[in-house]
């Protein structure tokens, strides 16, 4: 199948290095300490953060002098075309783990001993790149909750189809069987926290795809910064009024 036409346009009309439209909003769940909705094209994720609060299940506490970060990822039954079979499959267990460890690395957990931070992520619409969208949504929600972080953890995926590196794969491109590289970085510190890849890819190609995904991350980071600053301005405006 042709995923990139001779003019260099993809199935949904994007160029190879073009991202889908990003819509993000913070403070969408009133009960939560922090929350956000993050949309990337047709992928839509809602994130809610509770905490820092007292540890509920003491056995989960591993380090005494750090906050415990918990993360639950789930995909809504209606998020894909065919109905999801079970709620907690192996994929979501792994994703919960991966997202938790990514967020743990960017939260200054040593500032909040004896407390726990819960991150709930729900995929409302899945169209490829859900794990990236989840990390971005979680970052926004954590920032909204006012939890101190080293940097904004952002994530973006890139793939390789028809011998072209493609940024931000959608579902059709993702399930085409080509390589899929998901990168999570701390943009200002320029560190890679998350890196997942599957399918076969030669070394050199991987480097270009990896670089493309990193560039995508930086662009997303800019967008997230804008959203957060806009939100803060709004709040200050309202307080003044």
């Amino acid at each position, binding site marked *: 199948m042709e995923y990139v036409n001779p003019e260099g346009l993809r199935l949904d009309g994007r160029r190879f290095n073009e991202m889908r439209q990003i819509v993000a909003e913070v403070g969408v769940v009133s009960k939560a300490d922090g929350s956000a909705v993050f949309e990337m094209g047709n992928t839509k994720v809602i994130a809610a953060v509770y905490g820092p609060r007292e540890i509920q299940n003491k056995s989960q506490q591993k380090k005494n002098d750090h906050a415990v970060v918990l993360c639950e990822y789930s995909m809504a039954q209606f998020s894909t075309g065919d109905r999801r079979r079970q709620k907690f499959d*192996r994929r979501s267990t*792994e994703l919960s783990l991966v997202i938790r460890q*990514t967020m743990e*690395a960017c939260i200054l957990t040593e500032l909040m001993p004896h407390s726990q931070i819960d991150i709930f992520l729900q995929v409302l619409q899945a169209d490829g790149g859900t794990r990236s969208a989840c990390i971005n949504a979680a970052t926004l929600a954590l920032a909204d909750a006012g939890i101190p972080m080293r940097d904004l953890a952002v994530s973006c995926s890139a793939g390789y189809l028809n011998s072209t590196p493609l940024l931000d794969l959608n579902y059709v491109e993702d399930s085409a069987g080509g390589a899929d590289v998901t990168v999570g970085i701390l943009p200002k510190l320029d560190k*890679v926290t998350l890196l997942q890849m599957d399918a076969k890819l*030669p070394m050199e190609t*991987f480097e270009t795809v990896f670089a493309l995904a*990193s560039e995508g991350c930086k662009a997303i980071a800019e967008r997230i910064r804008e959203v957060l600053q806009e939100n803060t301005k709004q709040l200050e405006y309202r307080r003044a009024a």
Partner: protein
Amino acid sequence: MEGRLANMWRLTVNESKFVETALQSELRVDGRGLYDYRKLTIKFGKEYGSSEVQLGQTHVMGFVTAQMVQPYKDRPNEGSLSIFTEFSPMADPSFEPGRPGESAVELGRIIDRGLRESRAVDTESLCILAGKMVWSVRIDLHILDNGGNLVDAANIAALAALMTFRRPDCTVGGENGQEVIIHPPEEREPLPLIIHHLPIAFTFGFFNKGNIVVMDPTYVEEAVMCGRMTVTVNANGDICAIQKPGEEGVNQSVILHCLRLASSRAAATTKIIREEVEAYNRERSLQKVKRHPTLAKSEVSGPTVAVKEEYRKSSDQEKAAEISREHVERLKLSPEELRSSKEQEATNFKGGPSNWDPYSEAMDVDSLKVSLASEGDSITKSSSKKKTNGSGNAQKDGGEISVEEVTGDLGKKDTKHKDGEMTLKDAVKPKKKRKNKT
């Protein structure tokens, strides 16, 4: 809850500081270099598709089984490959019995991604009847001992098990051409899986804010390290999967450095696995000769043909094969004894006058032995004749080529094997008696 806390193993501050400080001067607690791998041993079980991998202290067992099932609707002409992990509390007290924990799921997913998404196993060849019947291959990975770096060990165990797995051959036939006939292994040789390439996982540990990279971390290092990355590569230099699940951030250059290290290692590990598998297969094919005496001549290759002819002569093959095996076992032991005595003989007799040897008394014993042995020689000659003629039905019926050779070599010296019914003990005892005499 209390129990769980007690089960959790924590490294003391001193220990972790020690490990980390040592690493800063490029030293590892077990004496390896930063990028050295632990010793890898692969063993195979009696059945097809079972493997046991030992990587340092880590011990993982892999089993592959196959079953015929209906294919998934979206992939009607592809078999399936699934991976199940079992983290037994025996291996590590922090593993809880029952539902697989997060780490078990992650391990399975990493290996799954490396094997399946890179299409290492040809799933299309597992199709029997498109849309109706396919083989579903299941890999079970049991962690027996956790000495750190479970992913790499489990991955190798999975590969080794897959490579030695054989599924029964089956054909589509019957009246309507829709019936699946499975041929038992006695009838048709079971088929191996088609494996395109070997994706091998390499795990790196990051220390000191990602500034120190270590390959194949041990259990202690895993407790100290601040980040981890598993890279799955094959010998062609392709990257099949990467997993860096969050944790401490590292620079891009470090990641690319790890990738290069891994791909430079892949060929060596591939070689080890292939060699072990080949050695195992060779052993299996030797055993097979005895197990399926009715094999058609055309199916037997090379040197075993001659054996087959001998087989056909026999009337009571089963029994004969058994006896011959016993024979081989007994002979395996005796040549060593004999060789050692022969060597002694040689050294002693080459020496000049008797006063040259300070242990002249010992020499006496040996010379006695030798004289006995030489006496034996003559006996053996006659006994071996006897075997071929009358009493040795074992020789006649079960004579596999290798057996023949061995008996040929040893028969001259072996004094005591006068008939096939003798046990190993019988073979050893007389020697003691001889010593007592002297």
